[in-house]
């Protein structure tokens, strides 16, 4: 237990006002992406980040800045080769149900119904049949998919698919929710509704959330803190506090909110331009 505490203290420069030991500690993590063909790319360069229990942190940056890679490393889907990632003091070695992930393109099992998708994780956790049936129904209701229990993903709209994916992940009760641009594939109206809904769910079942996005307003609206990442190689440029009263219906028009979005947008814009320049 001692080493991680030391580490989180050493990382105080990243997050100065750390009163409780961080639940997730990312320490000096670099990641080399090796495509099957072509040159190796340094996707992440010495990234450090602490996330406290029940905190909502957004990773914001231009495409190709390695924000999804960082999420996959925390999830244990990619091996940590340089640096260390600790969750509750233990190094991440493999995917686990303590860290639930939601993908941009849903990754639902197309051969299973909404109910079947949600039940799968509960079966794997060894939950008794009656209990998991009830739990599946509860989470279908939580995301408002009543009446679609027995629909297949191919019969659902994009928003409904993502609701199913969120319900599926929440149902096995992870402590940490990893969200990889979850609303990126949805149309603007659906995205707005889903953001509000995510906040509602998060307030009901408080979890630690790491939320990857390239939408500045979404990041400021949802997150307690926004980590702005730089273009390739991915680094955390700054971390901005973005605590607002989420339940304020006029939040998008509030002066402080608009200024915050503006401030972060200016930080991201430079990186986006740099990323564009590098690509062409």
């Amino acid at each position, binding site marked *: 237990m001692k080493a991680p505490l030391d580490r989180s203290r050493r990382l105080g420069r990243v997050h100065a006002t750390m009163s409780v030991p961080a639940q997730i500690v990312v320490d000096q993590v670099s990641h080399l992406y090796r495509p099957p063909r072509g040159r190796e790319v340094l996707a992440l360069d010495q990234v450090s980040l602490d996330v406290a229990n029940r905190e909502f942190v957004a990773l914001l940056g231009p495409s190709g800045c390695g924000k999804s890679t960082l999420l*996959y490393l925390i*999830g244990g*889907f990619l091996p940590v080769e340089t640096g260390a990632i600790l969750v509750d003091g233990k190094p991440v070695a*493999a*995917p*686990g*149900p303590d*860290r*639930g*992930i939601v*993908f941009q*393109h849903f*990754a*639902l*099992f*197309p*051969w*299973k*119904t909404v109910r079947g998708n949600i039940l*799968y*994780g509960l079966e*794997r*956790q060894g939950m008794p049949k009656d209990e998991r049936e009830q739990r599946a129904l509860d989470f279908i209701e939580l995301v408002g998919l009543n009446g679609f229990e027995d629909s*297949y*993903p*191919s*019969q659902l709209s994009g928003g409904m698919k993502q609701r199913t994916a969120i319900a*599926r*992940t929440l149902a*096995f009760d992870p402590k940490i929710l990893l969200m990889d641009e979850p609303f990126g594939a949805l149309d603007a109206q659906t995205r707005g509704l889903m953001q509000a809904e995510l906040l509602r769910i998060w307030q009901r079942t408080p979890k630690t959330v790491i939320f990857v996005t390239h939408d500045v307003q979404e990041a400021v609206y949802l997150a307690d803190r926004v980590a702005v990442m730089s273009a390739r190689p991915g680094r955390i440029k700054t971390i901005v506090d973005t605590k607002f009263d989420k339940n304020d219906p006029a939040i998008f028009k509030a002066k402080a909110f608009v200024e915050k979005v503006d401030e972060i947008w200016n930080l991201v814009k430079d990186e986006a331009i740099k990323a564009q320049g590098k690509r062409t």
Partner: protein
Amino acid sequence: MPPDGWPEKAARFTYIVVTRFFSIAVLLAAWEILARSGTFTPFQLPALSNVLLRIWQDAVTGDLAINTALTLYRALVSFAICAVGGVAIGMAMSRNRLAHWFFDPIISVGFPMPKIAFLPVIILWLGVYDVSKISIIVIDAIFPVIAATVIAIQGIERELLWSARNMGAREREMLWQIVLPAALPQIMTGLQVALPLTLIVAVVAEMLMGGYGLGGAMMTASRFANSTGVFAGIVEIAVIGYCLVKAMALLRRRLLIWHQEANEPTTA
């Protein structure tokens, strides 16, 4: 008195059959007219009506049932072996480097080869009975199944596998619970290619080896200069092939009820 709605249903059924098989009907009508016009001798082109009469006679004597059953037995046993073996080899290739290293060159060289050319060797080693016939059919029809399985498994999104691992699926569970169902649509496509191949190769092998079966019966008819018998064989094989392909398409719709294509009109 037929029950209510019966004439409408019958009319609708007739309409579907007529529109769907119009081109076939035209072809058959042309056959009959051409044969009766005297352009060809009955030996060159027997009339369709005579061919159908011959099929009827074969059906009455029981020859048709025996030959059809034998050919179908050879084709379907081979198909079952291709399905199980092809999917197993394909899965092994995608999950095991050694298996991939071993089988990949064999597939690359073997797929485009005319496998029926091995028939003399197969006869030499395995004789002229069912074992050799089924072997040559399997050798011919297993390739599309293996190729489809390998491509299907390669094409599974990593996010799907990650999701399952995230929920606590173990490696052994992944194979049956995630990899196989995710690959099923493309595996089914491979099986739909393999099934008519098994019938084709079964008939060809029977023609070359003789004995009972639809292909054997056609060769016998040919040796006795019985062209009506030869044409009867062709018609029988066409009908059986159509039924097999149709049954497979139905099975696909049943198995892939969850798939996008289940909501779309059929093309098969």
